[in-house]
C-alpha cells in the first residue's frame, strides 16, 4: 500500500534525485544525444516540486494529472511529452484514489507502457525508456500473479527495471536522437532508460 502522502514524498524525492543526477543524465545524453536530458528533466521536476504545496490536498489521480501538465509544459524535448503522457495516463488509472494498492500499481505500470507506445511509437529493444518500463510491468504482473505481496512484487519489478536499464547498453537505438548514430550508440546507456529507472525507484518507495 502506498499512500498519497508517500506519493507526495516520492515526488519530492524524485525532484531531488533528478537534481543530483542532472549532470550524469546530461553526460549520458551528450554521448549519444544532444546533452540536455538531465537539464530537461530537472527543469520539469523543479517546477513540480515548486507547485506541490498547491496541489497536496488532491487525490492521487489529480496529483498525477498536475505532474503531467507541469512536465508537458516545462520539459520539452522528447522526454517532456513522454513523461508527461506517462503521468497523464497514470492519472486516468488512479482517478479519485487516495492510496495505491497492488492492483492500482499494476494499472499505473500498464498506463506507463501504453503511454510510450502511443506517444513515442517505440518497441522493446529500441533503446528507450520502454526497455525499463516493459520489463518492470511484466515482472510486476507475474509476481502478483504468482501470489507475491505488493512489496515483494515491487522489489522484483525494480530488479527487472534495473536489468532493463542495463540492457540498453549494447543496443542500437531505433528511436530518438540516438537512432541517428547507428552502431556508434552501442556501448552506452540510454539516458531515458536511466532516468526511468531512477524515477520508478524513487517515486514508489514503500519504505518512505
Amino acid at each position, binding site marked *: 500500500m502506498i499512500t498519497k502522502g508517500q506519493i507526495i514524498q516520492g515526488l519530492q524525492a524524485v525532484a531531488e534525485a533528478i537534481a543530483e543526477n542532472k549532470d550524469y543524465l546530461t553526460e549520458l545524453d551528450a554521448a549519444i544525444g544532444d546533452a540536455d536530458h538531465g537539464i530537461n528533466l530537472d527543469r520539469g521536476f523543479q517546477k513540480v516540486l515548486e507547485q506541490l504545496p498547491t496541489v497536496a490536498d488532491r487525490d492521487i489521480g489529480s496529483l498525477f494529472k498536475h505532474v503531467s501538465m507541469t512536465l508537458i509544459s516545462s520539459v520539452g*524535448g522528447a522526454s*517532456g511529452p513522454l513523461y508527461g503522457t506517462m503521468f497523464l495516463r497514470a492519472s486516468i488509472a488512479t482517478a479519485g484514489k487516495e492510496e495505491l494498492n497492488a492492483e492500482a500499481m499494476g494499472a499505473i505500470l500498464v498506463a506507463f507502457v501504453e503511454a510510450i507506445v502511443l506517444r513515442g511509437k517505440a518497441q522493446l529493444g529500441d533503446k528507450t525508456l520502454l526497455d525499463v518500463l516493459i520489463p518492470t510491468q511484466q515482472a510486476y504482473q507475474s509476481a502478483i500473479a504468482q501470489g507475491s505481496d505488493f512489496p515483494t512484487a515491487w522489489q522484483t519489478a525494480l530488479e527487472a527495471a534495473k536489468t532493463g536499464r542495463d540492457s540498453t547498453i549494447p543496443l542500437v537505438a531505433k528511436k530518438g536522437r540516438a537512432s541517428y548514430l547507428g552502431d556508434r550508440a552501442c556501448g552506452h546507456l540510454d539516458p531515458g532508460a536511466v532516468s526511468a529507472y531512477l524515477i520508478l525507484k524513487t517515486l514508489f518507495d514503500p519504505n518512505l
Partner: protein
Amino acid sequence: MKKLINDPNAVVRESLEGMAIAHADLINVHYQPHFIYRADAPISGKVALISGGGSGHEPLHGGFVGLGMLDAACPGEVFTSPTPDQMLEAAKAVHGGAGVLNIVKNYSGDVMNFEMAAELANAEGIPTLNILIDDDVAVKDSLYTQGRRGVGTTVLAEKICGAAAEQGYSLQALADLCRKVNLNGRSMGMALTSCTVPAKGSPTFELGDREIEMGIGIHGEPGRQRLTLQSADDIAQRLAESILEDPPYTRTLREWNLDAGDWIEQELTNPPLRAGDSVLAFVNSMGGTPLSELYIIYRQLAKICQQHQIQIVRQLIGPYITSLEMQGCSITLLKLDEEMLKLWDAPVKTPAWRWGI
C-alpha cells in the same frame, strides 16, 4: 565555457528580449509561454504559418517571423523542443480565421510536442495541420531509426510557404505545398568542431585536431561517421554526392486529417534528383564557419552540380540554420518547379531576411 551571456539558464529569455527591443517594428515577443509573432498578427483570412524548435539554431525560426514568412515561432530551450502550450498560445495569437500550418522538423521531441499542440488546437476549434520536414540524407533508413531529421529544407519551406500564405493559399493548399517542398529537398551536414550548450557548459563531444564528423544534425550531436580532416573540395563532394546519389526515399508520415479529426498515416516518397533538374542550392554555416569558407564549398558544389547536369537557378549562402558556434556546414539541394521558384522570389521582411520590400 566562454560566451556572451549572463546566466546560462536565461539565454533564451534574454536573447528574446533583445530581439523584441531591436525589432519592435516587425515582431512582438510573448513570454511564458515564449513565442515570437508578427507585429501585425492576426491577419484576417490568411493562413497562419507557425514553426518552432529548440533554440540555438538562430536565425531559425524567430529571425524568420514577418511578412512573407512565419506568423509565429516557438523557441524551446537550447536544442530542446518547445512545449505544446507554446504552440497553442501562438496559434491563438496569430490565427486569422483561415487555419494554422505548423512546420515541424522531424525530431522525436519536436514531433511529439507539435502533435500534442495540434490536437489541442484542433480541439479548441483552430483548424491546424502539421507538415514534417525530414530531409537529412545522412539517415539512410526510416524503419530502424526515427527517420530522417529535419534540417536545411526547413528554412526553404518557411520562405516558400510564407510567401504562399501571404498570397492567400488555403490551409490545405499550403500543407500540400509544404509537403512538396519537403519531398523535393535533401540535405547533408558536417562538423569541424562541437558546440557548447550553455546550461551544460562544456562541448557536447570532443573532436581531435584532425577529425571531422560527417552526417550531423543541428543539435551539436555527433554524426554518422567520424573521418579524418579533408579538403573543402572533398567535403563538398561527399556532401553533394550523398544528396545527388540519394535513391528514392520512402517512409510513412503522420498528418492530421481535418475531416477525420485524427491522425492518418501516409506513405511518401522523395523522387531522386535527375540530370536536367533545376535546383536551389543552399550552403549553410553551422554557426562558427566564416562566409569565405562557405564560398569555397559553393565553388565545388557548383562544379559537381554541373557535372551531374543539375542546374542551380537560385542560391542561399550563409548561417541560416545553425548549431550555436559550431564550425561546419551543410548543403541542401531543393528541386524547384515554377510555383516554388516564384514564391522563393516573393518579397520578405523579417528580422533576419529581407528583400523586395
